[in-house]
């Protein structure tokens, strides 16, 4: 180590390695500089101005956006710097509704802890605070703009890591806000409910929607029998809320015990239906591979990923596995089987799930997953919410006895548990198809790597199977584009929205530490290792389900209970943008697709010509010409719909001909 590669922090020499900025060097020196807007995974924003330090010869600089230089002399604690930090916190406290005791983020809020840490004890600023109403439109997250400090972490995460950008900065100056487009409710735009915005928000501006009171209400209702499924990832992280190490084996047993004491009638494990999912999905995959069906097959257990496909990639909807997620399969089976088994009426059975995930709250509301007014999964709470319920009930988690899960839905193999990790679903499929490979095998090493994208090739009796694993939806979209461009040749792709997979879900106790995520991942692997069985095909309770009810995977019955379908949620569709001048009289719609592919085939020229013809033939009163996006016949455009008849490869003649035909029919 040469003497040149270091700098001085408050008089102490610290070496520089490959840190991108002096903030990271300062953290290395065990000084936790306060920040709001700095995130090692996100682009540097430099807005909160809390991390200012003094550099000799340069004055005050923001540590997050200044590169370390050898010989720099930094001071992190000068009177000026301290005053600046306190002033910033005071200004933030004066800028919104920061009433701590009634805020859901109290106790884990960065603004609160910094105010305390820096000794900000009065707010001297009195400019009026604008009214900013709550956004309660989403089942997964709750937005409270009156608490927003405009750090932009949510904006950058949604944009850079998820590649969606459902939420952004609006307006300017003190009118600036963070909001969805046109200030709509977050559920009215392309949000996929991944909840990472809530996970990354340092204050209470975006939080996970709480369903705790509804669960307590169900538990307190003597007419209801409430059962619960616990997702694998929950056990890897809930201990963090109680000061327990992630890999404590007794955590799951304590979760069971806590849930029973809260009043749940039966406690089950989602890992059971995870095993079941593999039976269905692996079979579906092998069928497609053998019979030349749509490949690659994309996993469908991540509801955020599914919604993204519905919004932005409907052309690959057919590539998604038609299998429901483990949560959804559980709800479906539970409502089908348990009333008989437990001797209760179907409508009195309440299925609650505990998930690391906020999108699962949305998934439970999907109309396909249940009957009208009676969803398969009634309520979803997150790991954090369960921890709260445990605290609410006064249970001392760390001292609870260890209890076992109820059967048969509490039974699983290790394959079901590893769903919690990114790469776990794929590994479970591999175990089903090729048996358990050793940890040292290249395939398993690749699957278990922590990179956001991995690909591997597995030799099977059907030939080589190419598997891709991604986490983070921006990365997933990039991969899809490569596949569509023919640059990537994969058979099976696992997509998870959250960093590291479900263990990094937004419902988990908040962390931004790779180390903590790594610990959760390891904890899951240890559970897998400690179980008796590791391959889904070994789960005899699952076998029983087939022999008793479903016959074989992908059977008609299996499809009815365990599979689903998806819907296109394109931004501009259906109604389109109506183009005619005159209003009032109900008209026959003529819709022109102006999506890119049709555009390239001359859709708008066609539109203009047809409009001209319509006017010439004086049909403007009867027909309502519209532009719409996209009728998903991209290879057969231009596509035009007259009334409800679709024309592909449309020309002026064919469109006008159809218009005249339809007019004749309508007249008659």
């Amino acid at each position: 180590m040469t003497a040149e590669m270091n700098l001085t922090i408050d008089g102490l020499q610290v070496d520089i390695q490959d840190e991108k900025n002096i903030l990271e060097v300062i953290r290395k020196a065990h000084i936790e500089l306060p920040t709001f807007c700095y995130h090692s995974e996100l682009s540097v924003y430099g807005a909160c101005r809390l991390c200012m330090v003094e550099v000799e010869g340069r004055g005050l600089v923001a540590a997050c956006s200044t590169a370390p230089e050898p010989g720099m002399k930094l001071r992190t604690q000068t009177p000026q710097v301290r005053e600046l930090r306190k002033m910033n916190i005071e200004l933030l406290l004066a800028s919104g509704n920061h009433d701590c005791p009634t805020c859901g983020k109290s106790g884990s809020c960065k603004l609160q802890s910094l105010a305390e840490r820096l000794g900000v004890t009065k707010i001297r600023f009195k400019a009026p605070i604008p009214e900013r109403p709550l956004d309660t439109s989403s089942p997964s997250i709750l937005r409270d703009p009156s608490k927003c400090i405009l750090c932009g972490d949510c904006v950058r995460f949604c944009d850079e890591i998820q590649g969606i950008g459902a939420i952004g900065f609006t307006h300017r100056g003190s009118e600036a806000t963070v909001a969805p487009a046109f200030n709509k409710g977050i559920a009215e735009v392309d949000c996929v409910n991944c909840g990472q915005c809530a996970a990354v928000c340092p204050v209470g501006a975006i939080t996970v929607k709480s369903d705790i009171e509804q669960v307590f209400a169900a538990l307190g209702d003597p007419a209801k029998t409430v059962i619960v499924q616990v997702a694998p990832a929950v056990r890897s992280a809930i201990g963090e809320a109680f000061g327990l190490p992630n890999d404590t084996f007794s955590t799951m047993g304590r979760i069971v015990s806590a849930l029973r004491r809260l009043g749940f009638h039966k406690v089950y494990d989602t890992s059971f239906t995870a095993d079941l999912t593999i039976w269905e999905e692996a079979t579906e995959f092998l069928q497609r591979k053998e019979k030349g069906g749509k490949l690659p097959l994309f996993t469908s257990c991540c509801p955020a990923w599914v919604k993204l496909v519905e919004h932005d990639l409907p052309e690959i909807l057919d590539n998604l596995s038609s299998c429901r997620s483990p949560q959804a399969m559980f709800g479906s089976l539970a409502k089908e089987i348990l009333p008989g088994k437990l001797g209760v009426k179907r409508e009195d059975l309440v299925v609650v799930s505990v998930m690391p995930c906020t999108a699962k709250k949305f998934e439970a509301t999907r109309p396909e997953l249940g009957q009208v007014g009676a969803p398969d999964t009634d309520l979803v709470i997150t790991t954090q919410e369960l921890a709260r319920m445990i605290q609410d009930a006064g249970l001392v988690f760390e001292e609870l006895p260890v209890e076992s899960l109820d059967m048969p839905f509490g039974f699983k193999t290790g394959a079901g548990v590893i769903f919690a990790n990114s790469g776990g679903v794929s590994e479970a499929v591999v175990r089903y198809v090729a048996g358990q490979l050793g940890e040292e095998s290249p395939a398993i090493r690749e699957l278990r790597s922590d990179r956001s994208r991995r690909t591997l090739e597995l030799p099977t009796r059907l030939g080589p199977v190419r598997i891709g694993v991604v986490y983070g939806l921006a990365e997933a979209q990039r991969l899809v584009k490569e596949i569509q461009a023919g640059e990537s040749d994969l058979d099976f792709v696992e997509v998870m929205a959250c960093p590291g997979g479900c263990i990094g879900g937004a419902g988990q106790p908040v962390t931004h530490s790779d180390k903590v995520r790594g610990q959760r991942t390891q904890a899951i692997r240890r559970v897998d290792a400690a179980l008796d069985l590791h391959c889904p095909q070994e789960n005899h309770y699952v076998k029983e389900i087939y022999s008793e009810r479903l016959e074989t995977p992908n059977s008609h019955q299996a499809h009815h209970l365990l599979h689903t379908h998806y819907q296109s949620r394109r931004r501009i569709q259906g109604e389109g943008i109506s183009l005619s001048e005159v209003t009032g009289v109900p008209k026959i719609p003529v819709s022109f697709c102006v999506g890119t592919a049709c555009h390239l085939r001359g859709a708008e020229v066609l539109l203009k010509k047809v409009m001209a013809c319509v006017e010439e033939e004086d049909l403007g009163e009867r027909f309502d010409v519209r532009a719409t996006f996209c009728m998903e016949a991209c290879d057969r455009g231009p596509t035009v719909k007259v009334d409800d008849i679709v024309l592909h490869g449309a020309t002026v003649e064919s469109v006008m001909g159809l218009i005249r035909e339809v007019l004749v029919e309508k007249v008659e």
Partner: protein
Amino acid sequence: MSTVAMDLNLEKIGTDYDAVASRCARRVVICAGTGCMAGGALKVFKAMHEEAKAQGISLEINLDFEETGDRDGLLTKSGCQGFCQMGPLMSIEPDGILYCGVKPADVAEILRKTFRGGELVERLLYKVPATGQVCKGHGDIPFYTQQKRTVLAACGSMDPEDVREYIARGGYAGIRKAVLEMSDEDICKSMLDSGLRGRGGGGFPTGRKWDLTRIQPKGKKYIVCNGDEGDPGAFMDRSVMEGNPHAVIEGMMIAARAVGADEGYVYVRAEYPLAVARLRRAVKAAEEIGILGEAIFGSDFSFRLQVMEGAGAFVCGEETALLASIEGKRGMPMPKPPFPAQSGLWGKPTVINNVETLASVPLILSHGPAWYRAMGTAKSPGTKTFALTGHVANTGLIEVPFGATLRQIVFEIGGGITGKDGAIDNDAFKAVQIGGPSGGCLTREHLDLPMDFDSLTSIGAMVGSGGLVVMNQSTCMVRIAKFFMQFTQNESCGKCVPCREGTKQMLQLLDDITEGRATEETLPLLEQLARNVKLGSLCGLGKTAPNPVLSTLKQFRAEYEAHVHRKVCPSRECKALVTPEIKADRCKGCTLCARKCPVGAIEGERKALHTIDASKCIRCGVCVEACKFNAISGI
């Protein structure tokens, strides 16, 4: 794509132009800067053209006339001639006449008397208010004689839409020299030797900025011209862009050659539609003639230019915010470093220069660095344009060498201070705000300070972009500070906490002061906040936002204290601290005031005392003007 590049002969274009121009006996230039346009310059132009025809005088409006023979004159619209208070302006050469306040009805007389008769129309000449001296033109009007119009020299005297005239006056010779005779290092060194410092406010040595960009690895580089002059009351850059757009283009080309760029953008505020239009036309003309495009002057140097309009955000004058805007994003600044020289537009090395800076470049290259150094001061060579506005007799656009004093500018060029009723009253001098919302104020004690970058920074002010607002004794300095803070607050991008929240709270405190709600804690809190906003903000907007407050607090603390402690506004401008009243002993109940009041705030019966409802009164003063009995006070 120019096939003329190889054959581009500037001299020939120039001599061809002169040959035709010299056949016009006179040159009439009508100022068509935005100010004079608002005053009806176009109507004057049209009237002049038509009346000349009617009187049988051959007045051409461009040099594209076919027939041979001489003409009586060439009529041109120019950019801002600077003497805005006196517009619409018409100059006539070679007579050296400047007619002021010209109306369409005047042109018949001008043509008869001056064109035919060779006489002056005295009533249209400028009279020095203090002495009554009648001035013929630029040669003896003190406003002009005291200036050193260098960058602005061509602005008011040539047709900004005729590239041939620009060339005839030596235009584009600079870039030709740069391309054919100089290396990129030479060009940068020339700039460095000249001592040119950025005219947008930063004052950074231009040569050094270019050199820092030049040494970046070869590849895509950009030149960007910052025409987003947003300071209220500043219109220097606008005048250069309207009056001599080719100078800006040439400056950018030279910069491009110096650093290795092949593409550029001119970013102009949308509030300057004339500047945008003239720049676009100038770019087109330069492309047609072969100056812009590929293989310029037959070399391997290519350059193309796009003009982009801003969309109403002052913060886009900050360089990284400007770049974000060009990239299609919200104009929010980015932390520096990295500086644009290393990583600018789309991450590529970019030079961003102010309009005036760029317009100076061709002159430096043509006349040489020593010529530039000879003007101004040692550390701030050259000249600076200023927009002189406010309570001064001659408002307008001026240019002086650095080192000129405030006294020279305000009293000699500006013609002195105007008092409350508009008459000259040099005792009424209170302060001059320099540098707009980022600047500070200068008072009597600074009148003889030689103005340049460093001398102003040393007293807590700054040159800024060059806006100079003169204020007389009737101005409340607290309100001025509040006006600038309102502006800054409105324009803050909202990204960083100190600026977004700090300026909002500073404005609230200033509002408290002017509305009579201030307490003992207000001033210390305001100062503490100002200090922190200055230190903590991300970009120049926030860092300089507190300057007007800090400067006025320093120079006029007593005024602040009067507002705070005695709840009195010494200048009687803060309406909340002044109550309007109808004096009972004077009111005759004529109801005139009540009828004139636009918001119905005055009530009263005929022949009885009228009263003003203070809550409805907007203090517009119409009633005071209307009352024949001087019965209303307090407004």
